[in-house]
């Protein structure tokens, strides 16, 4: 694999994670439990859409085949998306949404922090930008994990259920492949395995305050997102997200 191919895959993947999570968060628009949270989730979704645009534009540039950020977002099928399966999991309830944002956000925070030192200037720049935004997102989701976990019996139960369900997708957050290897050697990508201890420490710190119990490491773990093997939820998400540009190609505002 050439460095160019690896860089395309890597940027595309970062874009996919951001876009799919953004789509999920924006599904709350008009349905939030309170107005402030409705606005907050759309705000975070917007940040993530912005991040995905940056990574998609760069992927398209690296690829050099005249594809645009929109082509990458709207004209690829399920098997051509390489996001982590965690971000495509449905919103279920507010607790599940906050838990997903928290578990994924902590990784995202650590990854972007590491990528600010990337030898690739564009990746480093996008990471620096994204890091500031993700810091706000994690502050928000971790606050809620604590409030819900250490809240009423019902909110505690919902937060624990969300944690148990989403835990099946945590191993996959740290999966890497040949693209990562090629880019780690070049100092462009970061080694996710090296972030795992710190990620665990962040999770433990918040779960302790939230009085939630971390699921055992030996349970079932999903995998495959980065190979394009997804849970049944991604196809539905894409069909909604991609409907308009596919039904009306080249539609403009």
């Amino acid at each position, binding site marked *: 694999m050439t460095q160019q191919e690896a860089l395309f895959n890597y940027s595309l993947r970062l874009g996919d994670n951001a876009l799919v999570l953004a789509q999920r968060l924006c599904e709350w628009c008009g349905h939030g439990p309170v107005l402030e949270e409705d606005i907050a989730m759309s705000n975070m979704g917007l940040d993530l859409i912005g991040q995905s645009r940056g990574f998609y534009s760069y992927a398209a540039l690296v690829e050099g085949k005249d594809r645009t950020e929109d082509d990458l977002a709207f004209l690829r099928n399920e098997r051509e998306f390489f996001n982590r399966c965690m971000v495509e999991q449905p919103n279920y309830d507010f607790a599940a949404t906050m838990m997903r944002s928290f578990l994924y956000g902590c990784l995202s925070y650590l990854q972007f922090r590491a990528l600010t030192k990337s030898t690739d200037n564009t990746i480093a720049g996008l990471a620096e930008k994204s*890091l500031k935004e993700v810091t*706000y997102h994690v502050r928000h989701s971790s606050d809620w994990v604590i409030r819900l976990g250490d809240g009423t019996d019902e909110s505690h139960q919902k937060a624990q259920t969300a944690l148990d369900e989403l835990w099946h997708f945590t191993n996959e957050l740290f999966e890497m492949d040949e693209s990562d290897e090629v880019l780690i050697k070049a100092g462009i990508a970061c080694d996710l395995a090296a972030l795992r201890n710190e990620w665990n420490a962040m999770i433990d710190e918040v779960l302790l305050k939230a009085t939630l119990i971390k699921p055992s490491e030996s349970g079932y773990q999903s995998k495959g997102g980065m190979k394009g093997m997804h849970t049944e939820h991604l196809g539905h998400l894409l069909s909604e997200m991609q409907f308009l540009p596919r039904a009306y190609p080249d539609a403009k505002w």
Partner: protein
Amino acid sequence: MNSPLTVEVKEIWSALNSIPDPEVPAINIVELGVVRDVAVDGKRVKVTMTPTYSGCPAMKTMEMAVQELMVEMGYEVEIVIVYKPAWTTEWMSEETKEKLKVYGIAPPPKLTFEHLHPFSSPKNVEIKCPFCESNNTKLTSQFGSTACKSLYFCEGCHQPFELFKCH
């Protein structure tokens, strides 16, 4: 802001000062800090800009306004978007912050170490109500009507207000 300050470049900078931030029209796009560099080569101008937040929907409006103004001034314009160094409210002058306050938005406090870590909320930073100057204010939500603002409530004058987030 590395390009030489020729007469033409100075003229363009001052013209750019006339473009208001579409979301917060009390300040202009230069004061906001999104214009990073202006370089002139004959009748061609290159304007370097950086987004405030990755997904800020006002960015496109600002780019179009710059584009239009440069064409009006007789230039062929190229707009380059850069991400590094990442935009920060630290670039705002005291004068700009005062304008925000007069407009009714609490200006961003100084960036501290706590702002950069998700688990340490900057608690010792006092946010003053832009209307009554009371320090007795509380955060309602970290996310407000635009990406760059948080929602606050003043216990002094019982008014909600917005804070331009420290970033």
